């Protein structure tokens, strides 16, 4: 029994080590991949522009719920004008980056993992190696960088739509004064809050894209293996995002 435990521990460490090694390979190859920017721009389109609809819709609804819940809570203390502050801080610092990253893992991460896994299963990656084309540089790095670039932009769009969602419910429906909604927000949201959100979404972008391309690239080349890689991408991403979120928040306080 101890032996099994020991083996699973070493397996986990080995997995972590190979992820770090993979990240190292990706960063080493990144400068050269930047020359072919149209490959990256295609991946920004795939991961970013195609996720836009789900991000905007979720942002709107998350913002509306924030407006409703925040209003309910704040009006008990007679300070419903603080709704703008509460919604903006909550969205920019926490909900924007985290929910965007979770949606990104579900929408774009799975697509990356299954695409790479299928390439592996249908021997396209081996074919590239045979033609002396480095698959990491040609296929993996553009997908990774595309995700890293798309993620902060998606998070920012999410936050903005969310703030307007909160404004829609708070000001238009619940009747909070529009002037104090915006002015209180402006008075209490600082540049450091925005920075925290951007740093978070950048780190989440790296984590999500890395997990997705790693799982896809090293997927078992069978139909079942690709399916498992896709599942693992979502599960691992979700846990890692929430764990990193705690770490970054603690570091910023």
């Amino acid at each position: 029994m101890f032996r099994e435990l020991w083996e699973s521990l070493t397996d986990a460490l080995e997995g972590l080590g190979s992820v770090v090694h993979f990240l190292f390979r990706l960063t080493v190859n990144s400068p050269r991949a930047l020359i072919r920017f149209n490959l990256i721009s295609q991946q920004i389109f795939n991961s970013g522009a195609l996720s836009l609809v789900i991000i905007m819709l979720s942002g709107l609804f998350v913002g509306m719920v924030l407006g409703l819940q925040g209003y309910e809570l704040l009006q008990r203390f007679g300070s419903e004008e603080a709704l703008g502050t509460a919604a903006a801080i909550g969205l920019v610092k926490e909900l924007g980056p985290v929910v965007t990253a979770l949606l990104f893992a579900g929408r774009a991460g799975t697509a990356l993992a299954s695409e790479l896994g299928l390439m592996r299963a249908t021997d396209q990656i081996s074919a590239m190696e045979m033609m002396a084309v480095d698959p990491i540089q040609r296929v993996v790095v553009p997908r990774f960088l595309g995700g890293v670039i798309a993620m902060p932009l998606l998070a920012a769009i999410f936050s903005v739509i969310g703030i307007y969602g909160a404004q829609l419910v708070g000001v238009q429906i619940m009747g909070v004064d529009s002037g104090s909604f915006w002015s209180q927000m402006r008075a209490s949201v600082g540049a450091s809050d925005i920075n925290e959100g951007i740093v978070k979404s950048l780190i989440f972008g790296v984590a999500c894209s890395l997990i997705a391309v790693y799982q896809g690239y090293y997927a078992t080349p069978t139909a079942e293996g690709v399916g498992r890689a896709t599942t693992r991408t979502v599960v691992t991403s979700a846990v890692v995002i929430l764990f990193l979120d705690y770490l970054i928040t603690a570091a910023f306080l």
Partner: protein
Amino acid sequence: MRKSRTLNLGTGTFVLLGFAALLFLTTQTTSRGLSVFSPPHFDLTAKFDNIGDLKVGSPVSMSGVEIGRVVKIDFDENEYKAVVLLRLNARYNHIPTDSDASIYTQGLLGGKFIGLTAGGADTYLKNGDQIDFTQSAFVLENLIGQVLANFTNSKANSTSSGDTSAAAPAPAPADSKAAKPKATEKAK
């Protein structure tokens, strides 16, 4: 060719939207805005005995209109006073030299800000000048401490004299004392 065109168009639109969102967050949700476009300004200093929780970035206002911000707070070791550097918009260059600066609170528990009240001199403040007339921050805790001290004193007096009826009016002067600074602050 056409396919790559629509693709680039989509990517471009997405990136543009993303940066527009970032710009919106940095300029519309914060008070700071872009520091690149800082308007022409001039600096004044003022020394205070106590600045309370005045912070860098707190507004400087005159008649309730924001005319500048606090950019630096220092401590003068010779005079044991706080030295506050104010940065005012260059448009407001007709502030008399004998104007006074006081530290007020926004609302009951809000942040602190500096209010300038115009004096009557014919000469105007310019870059690097010092405001000589200052009034320290009104610290709520000190006031509560005073009120409590008064209250316990009067209670002790009334119990020692054995007169229970004195206990009821006793808090009243303490209250009016508490209300006074608040009232003057509001009037200003």
